[in-house]
């Protein structure tokens, strides 16, 4: 069984001259124009820049040169990835209108691979949220049901892929922000091992947890995008000095002989539909030749609490740079401190303020030991818990999110309930491990359900080949239909 490769198909058509990159782009721009007023996946559609890129790709083909593995493939970028001369807002008023003076490394690598960047996608403000509702520019809506959230924080990227606006997108995942929206929108999303993809030019939220990763319609496309963006980058001092990944080549290896652990803690408290789909995926892996057993990692139950101490702590430090001095919003006041305060109070939304205050509190004298340092010790326990599980099995399987997409507004009044959306995704970030969400049909209400494959550090090849089997056995999921929207 082989995972479909729509982006490779598209790129090969462009490379062979069978289709022009400009034609591919125009087709996608038409789908965006017809549907994004209902979805609001994009903060900005970069029509002009995209046309220039597509024309350059076509010239390369005409000149007889190879434009790269993503030749002419439209890619949507989460709006926390720096794009030189193109506004990068993090969906925050404090960065509205800011044009970065450089490209993120992942953006430069996409260009080199011949991709065409179609726009910047909506997100929770500074990636803080699980529903894309904390965006200063209004929420993104789930293409499968526009009364529901797309998940978050990379909700715009997930919705863009689900709606057919772009076959590929980049997101960032600090506590589940690629995988959870991928699950809720019925697409594939992977958080790679910490350090395998450069963070240079990714606007920082929680630096020890943030990781850029791919969203795509299929596992093979996600693998291809990971291969393009991954690999060592001297501009990121946390980048692992290893050769660039080549996971596409192992995708079709199957699961025969692998031991897969169904992570029991992730099933606790999940919706019955979600539990049923997860078990069905596990059975499909068993039928494909894997040994499947239930595995418990009790430490992951502490992940949520630890994360909401560590991530806000790091965020409170990272977001200190928004002071109205060098870029972005400034609200004038009589002296510098008053200017800093007025700028930040006007520029940040409520969720960002909550996290900055929570982080400042848990790092303050008198509380740092009880909260922040304690959370760092829990992080060690979680890593040890995973290590014990990976003595018994190669990968773990569980739900990506405890529920399918919830209605807009359902959780905005209660931050703690919103945070619980990340309960199955956070442990991988704390451990630095890779994990991938694969669509596995729908629940009874017709909403997409995602199944997650987790592995130890640098096991992308293994989790992807398991994901390919999960994908091949998944029940069908109806493609979303927007009013007046065709799709390529």
């Amino acid at each position: 069984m082989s995972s479909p490769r729509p982006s490779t198909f598209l790129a090969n058509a462009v490379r062979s001259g069978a289709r022009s990159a400009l034609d591919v782009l125009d087709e996608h721009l038409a789908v965006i124009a017809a549907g994004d007023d209902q979805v609001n996946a994009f903060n900005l559609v970069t029509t002009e820049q995209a046309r220039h890129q597509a024309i350059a790709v076509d010239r390369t083909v005409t000149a007889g040169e190879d434009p790269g593995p993503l030749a002419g493939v439209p890619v949507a970028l989460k709006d926390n990835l720096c794009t030189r001369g193109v506004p990068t807002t993090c969906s925050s008023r404090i960065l509205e209108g800011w044009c970065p003076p450089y490209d993120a490394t992942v953006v430069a690598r996409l260009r080199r691979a011949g991709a065409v960047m179609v726009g910047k996608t909506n997100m929770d403000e500074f990636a803080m949220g699980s529903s894309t509702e904390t965006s200063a520019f209004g929420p993104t809506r789930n293409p499968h049901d526009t009364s529901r959230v797309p998940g978050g924080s990379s909700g715009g990227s997930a919705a863009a892929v689900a709606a057919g606006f772009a076959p590929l997108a980049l997101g960032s995942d600090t506590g589940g922000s690629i995988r959870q929206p991928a699950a809720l929108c019925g697409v594939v999303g992977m958080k790679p091992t910490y350090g395998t993809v450069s963070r240079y030019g990714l606007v920082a939220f929680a630096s020890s947890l943030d990781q850029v990763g791919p969203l795509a319609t299929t596992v093979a496309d996600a693998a291809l995008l990971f291969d393009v963006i991954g690999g060592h980058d001297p501009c990121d001092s946390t980048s692992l000095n290893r050769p660039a990944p080549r996971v596409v080549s192992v995708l079709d290896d199957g699961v025969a002989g692998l031991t897969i652990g169904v992570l029991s803690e992730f099933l606790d408290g999940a919706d019955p539909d979600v539990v049923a789909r997860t078990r069905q995926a596990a059975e499909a892996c068993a039928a494909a030749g894997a040994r499947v057993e239930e595995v418990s990692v009790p430490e992951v139950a502490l992940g949520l609490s630890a994360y909401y101490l560590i991530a806000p702590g790091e965020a409170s430090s990272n977001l200190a740079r928004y002071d109205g001095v060098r870029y972005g919003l400034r609200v004038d006041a009589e002296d510098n401190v008053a200017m800093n305060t007025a700028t930040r109070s006007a520029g940040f939304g409520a969720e960002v303020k909550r996290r900055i205050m929570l982080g400042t509190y848990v790092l303050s004298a008198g509380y740092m030991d009880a909260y922040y340092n304690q959370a760092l010790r829990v992080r060690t326990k979680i890593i040890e818990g995973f290590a014990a599980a990976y003595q018994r099995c190669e990968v773990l399987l569980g739900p990506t999110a405890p529920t399918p997409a919830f209605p807009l507004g359902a959780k905005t009044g209660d931050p703690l309930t919103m945070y619980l959306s990340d309960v199955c995704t956070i442990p991988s970030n704390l451990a630095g491990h890779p994990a991938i969400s694969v669509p596995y049909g729908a629940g009874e209400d017709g909403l997409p359900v995602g199944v997650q494959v987790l592995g130890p550090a640098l096991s992308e090849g293994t989790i992807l080949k398991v994901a390919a089997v999960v994908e091949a056995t998944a029940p069908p999921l109806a493609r979303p239909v927007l009013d007046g929207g065709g799709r390529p």
Partner: protein
Amino acid sequence: MAGPERLTREEVAHVADLARLQLTDEELELFTGQLAEVLDHAADVASLDLADVVPTAHAMAVTNVLRADEVRPGVDRDEVLGQAPSVEDHRFRVPRILGESP
């Protein structure tokens, strides 16, 4: 280890001040309740006995990352200053920072 006392409105006001945020009375009231709820949830972590466990700040830590000490171009100065809210003589201009009269 017992968890700390419940978060108070005064503490939230103090933290907001440290973080250079000015809150309205309504925000202060709302955030105090919401942040206290998150910290209550974190009591399971705060109350664990983990004295012997080494903390992890970075899951994939790498150390002593240095580059060759050679001159190379940085980002363009004018492009950077072009994004600043206020500039004077190729520098970032800010309101007064000391107590002198303007």
